[in-house]
């Protein structure tokens, strides 16, 4: 007997009763082309599942949890068109001011000049496709370290997600402070200032470089930094 496409799909999705299942299985055993069609169905399902799985594995944004538990705080999405316009507005305001165009461009380029000029054995910052990217120990620290208060050669102060869903991290070394955001599997340096924190000092009280970067971070993520659990989850997904 012939098994049509709908019957085979229903079999693959576990939608048949025992009698139909047995008929399909008998046909599958006798017909390699049908078996190949079944394999194609299953491969497509796996591909789709893998494609959408990361969405369900990401931390749920606070605003959605608020919408369920404390609607007054979450505000309301009246319609998608309005929400889209609002989001576009927000994105415009929170676009990372590129170091080259920002007010701190001069200081940043001086810091960079020093950095790039003294790259012996691999410095912390390089460039790729016209974008500054973290390299070496800085790259490794951004990828592997969680935010910590205690001094380290590269200290991560906090992590956040910006309006575009990118993970960004504020880092500090003895000589530098900066903001790096995950893009295309690299840490793109969005801001960089010379003169990081004092060794052993408390970044919260440190003015200057870190203060400016913190202010930039707040503009990027008004809802605040990731908590420890969110940060660990982001790291487990390699910041994607």
């Amino acid at each position, binding site marked *: 007997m012939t098994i049509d*496409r*709908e019957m085979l*799909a*229903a079999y693959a*999705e*576990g*939608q048949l009763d025992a009698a139909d299942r047995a008929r399909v299985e008998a046909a599958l055993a006798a017909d390699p082309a049908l078996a190949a069609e079944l394999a*194609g*169905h299953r491969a*497509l*399902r796996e*591909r*789709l*599942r*893998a*494609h*959408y*799985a*990361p*969405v*369900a*594995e*990401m931390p*749920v*944004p606070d*605003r*959605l*949890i608020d*919408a*369920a*538990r404390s*609607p007054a705080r*979450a505000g*309301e*999405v009246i*319609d*998608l*068109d309005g*929400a*889209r316009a609002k*989001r576009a507005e927000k994105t415009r305001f929170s676009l990372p001011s590129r170091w080259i165009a920002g007010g701190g461009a001069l200081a940043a380029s001086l810091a960079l000049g020093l950095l790039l000029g003294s790259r012996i054995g691999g410095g912390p910052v390089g460039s790729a496709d016209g974008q500054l990217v973290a390299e070496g120990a800085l790259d490794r620290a951004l990828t592997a370290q969680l935010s910590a208060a205690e001094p380290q050669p590269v200290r991560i102060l906090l992590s956040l997600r910006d309006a*575009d*869903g990118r993970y960004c991290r504020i880092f500090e070394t003895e000589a530098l402070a900066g903001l790096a955001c995950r893009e*295309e*599997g*690299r840490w793109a340096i969005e801001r960089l200032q010379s003169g990081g924190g004092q060794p052993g000092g408390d970044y919260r009280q440190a003015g200057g470089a870190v203060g400016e970067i913190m202010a930039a971070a707040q503009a990027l993520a008004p809802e605040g930094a990731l908590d420890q659990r969110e940060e660990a989850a982001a790291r487990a997904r*390699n910041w*994607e």
Partner: protein
Amino acid sequence: MSFEDGIVALLPRLRRFAAGLSRNLAEGDDLCQMTIERALKARHQWAEGTRLDSWMYRIMRNLWIDEIRAAQRRRQTFVEEEAGLGVGVAAEQEVRTELGFVDRAMARLPDEQREAVLLVMVEGYGYQEAADIIGCPVGTLSSRFVRGRDALHNLLEGGQ
């Protein structure tokens, strides 16, 4: 578990379905929030002891259909096809290309086939449950699903 807790527990799955429908994570989250708001307002319509998940999926799907109709009235392209989900499982360029293929192929399906494929293949609903969420007969669901699956298969196997 309270009604609110039930909703919160469903949020990861609801976001996935919303991202699949809207083909855009940020827009999907807006759709998700609207769904939560609608569910809270209509909570008296949910019969305790019945499945909260299919009820919420139905709300979301209907909100999305309203949105498609509104967008058609505005006669404007709703989502940039290229925008994709903007999420990735890994950083490798090949994987990003792969994500682009699936997003583009899904974008080319008619809405009724896309939702059928999402509910059955991604969300794992049986035909009857998926048909109940959409509000169509099981036979209709089955044929939309198979047509959508075949179209996707051809688009993706064709290297597009």
